[in-house]
């Protein structure tokens, strides 16, 4: 059972957020341990386990990278950073430069410069995500999925560092 099965949703990268939220609500209303107070312990444990599964599935599908991983697995692609193909040298080079730029900006605690980078990275993330969605929508383009996913991961990691920097400002 993957996340789509657990939630009974049709597997697709372009996901209707509202539909996902509604399915989440409907399922937890039926399964949440709060609805099983006073029931035999085995039943309560079962409810807890099922709710955890549903919550985890929703968390998986809300994250574009993990959603893409689920879909890639459905196509039998070897997902996971150790089994995915190595990223092209050009991407590595570029990411190294971005990383240096980010390290400099955060080191100087230059929030404006970090924010500018963040906007650039978010724009890029949106573009990569669009390409990933297109590759996942066409069976002919299955071969493109893992390289694009790899690129997503690099961009995400940069953005994670931006978030960590923002956190340190709050």
């Amino acid at each position, binding site marked *: 059972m993957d996340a789509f099965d657990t939630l009974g949703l049709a597997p697709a990268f372009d996901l209707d957020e509202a539909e996902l939220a509604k399915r989440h609500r*409907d399922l*937890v209303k039926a399964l949440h341990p709060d609805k099983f107070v006073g*029931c*035999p312990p085995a*039943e309560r444990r079962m409810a*807890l386990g*099922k709710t955890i599964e549903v919550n985890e599935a929703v*968390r998986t599908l809300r994250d574009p990278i993990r959603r893409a991983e689920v879909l890639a697995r459905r196509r039998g692609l070897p997902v996971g950073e150790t089994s995915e193909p190595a990223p092209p040298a050009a991407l590595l080079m570029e990411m190294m430069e971005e990383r240096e730029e980010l390290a400099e900006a955060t080191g100087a605690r230059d929030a404006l410069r970090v924010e500018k980078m963040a906007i650039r990275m978010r724009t890029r993330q949106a573009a990569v995500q669009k390409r990933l969605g297109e590759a996942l929508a066409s*069976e002919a383009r299955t071969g493109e999925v893992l390289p694009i996913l790899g690129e997503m991961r690099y961009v995400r990691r940069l953005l994670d560092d931006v978030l960590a920097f923002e956190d340190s400002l709050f």
Partner: protein
Amino acid sequence: MLLEIHDPKARPRPIGIDLGTTNSLVARVRDGRPVVIDDCGEPAMVPSAVAYTDGGEVVVGKAALRLSSENPANAAVSVKRLMGRGADDPETRRLGTYDFVAPTNENEAKSVRFRVAGRVLSPIEVSAEILKALRQIAEAELRSVGGAVITVPAYFDDAQRQATKDAAKLAGIEVLRLLNEPTAAALAYGLEKKQNGLFAVYDLGGGTFDITILRLHDGVFEVKSTGGDSQLGGDDMDRAIADVLLREMRGSADVATAPRSVVRLALDLARRAKHGLTDAEAVDVEVPGKGEGGEAINKSVTITRAQLDALILPMVERTGSACKRAMRDAGVTSAEIDGVILVGGSTRVPIVRTFVAKVFGKEPLGDIDPDQVVALGAAVQADLLAGEGNAEDVLLLDVLPLSLGIATMGGVVEKILPRNTTIPAGARQTFTTYADNQTGFDLHVVQGERELAADCRSLAQFFLKGIPPLPAGLARLEVTFHVDADGMLSVKARETTTGVEQTIAVQPSYGLTDEQVEEMLMAAIDHGEEDLAARRLLEERVEAERIVGATIKAITGDADLLEDGERARIETAIRELREAIGGDKPALIHARSEMLDQATKGWAERRMDRAIARAIAGKNVGDVEGDVEGARGVDAHVAEHAARRGGGEI
């Protein structure tokens, strides 16, 4: 000797408890509406103070506060700030009136302890006294209390939550649920207004600050993000004002040398001044001081609202950062927020209200008393959990307030469940050995946002042994985290490559062990073991009766899912359990409960599957066809991929 009001024949009723830093309240649902339970004709707002008299009597509430101003050494106040704290915690060194006791061993260091009236106490024991007092107030009205929802700050970590549960256990209260205070407030508001939308709950209490962003949609209260500071509140405002007063009284604000009675007096005067400044622009405070020649005189100190504002502005601004972060984490802007709910007595301070209005760009809602709203919400949730309310329509979905992770080699934290994950939650992560022939894993579970384990809260540390010697990186350790609906963590670890499985119970780094709680329980009850056995019998009976009730109810609803002979087996198990309930052997009740549990297990699984199918059934036929097609597509892909991979290897 405590007055025993409890009536075992009365039907047990659920209650909601707001165990606050400064004040505590108990509420219940009456005729479908939550109300704070009265004590002697007025809503019982019990000051969270406990005093111990020379005669060995324990006094709680207003009377304790009175005794405390006479002799601070005999009373404990604001202990909530110390819940779940270790003896080495920085909080223990801040302005306060505690006489802390240095730990003599590692076990003692797990919980801060202090001396009150000659006794050495932990904050858990003091909180238990407050909870007992609240239980008695509730019993006076309800005759029998059946279980409680107790609220905690959303930003409480695992150790603080565990400490709260331990206090309830000591007080003899069954905890139906630990509920986050802002969520409780939202529940009280949401049900009142019956309005869908996005809400922010700004909760500034006596000792803690929480900000929670949540969406209310068709009865589901889904928390999107939460943040805050478990050590920021009205107490800090009092401390800042007390600093000023102490300088006037002693010529210096050196707290370390000020006698505790003087500090307590300064804090009391400071609190009164703060309250006065809610409506007045300036207040005069009479403080004892020294004249020119060193003689004792009374001085009058004027404190203006502007002065107060300047003193507390840094604290208020700290709450602003947390609000912004919570909005960012929820992925929302202040413009999208439909309403801001104020909770906690400290939100009465005018500058706080102005500030909140500025941060969210709208006037906060204030139609429910900010002191009562949390207890009212807790009562509603208790009612729902006890199956008394209209449980079909309402559900709370809360989140993990702080990330949970494992410290890896080099002390870097690997996050396993990030903050703001919806609970109950679970996650699994695999780790490998770093050295050849490594036969054990040292696992360190931490909570917090910082990158280094040393900067996070240590929750538990354990060692997994018995791993067969293998080259580095070959042994695989699978660590599973489970967070239940109370926000409490449990951790399991197993070694997977060789089939060696080991599950480890986590020993908390902070707080008390089960044995310690049991010991305190024994010491607290007059007749020790005898009473403990009686209590256990009562607890088993209540639990078993509940299970019988739930099972019978389920049989009426889902009889069609019973297989041949299953009904007879379940009915036999029920009859046998009922016989045990009629007897006086807790162990037998427990064993028979487990038999019923076994008898209903398969049926329960089928019922749960049907519930899932029904929840999903909203989708139309086209979607189902899509699923089938999708499934076929997957098979095709797998085959295609296998063929391609095969080609590559040649």
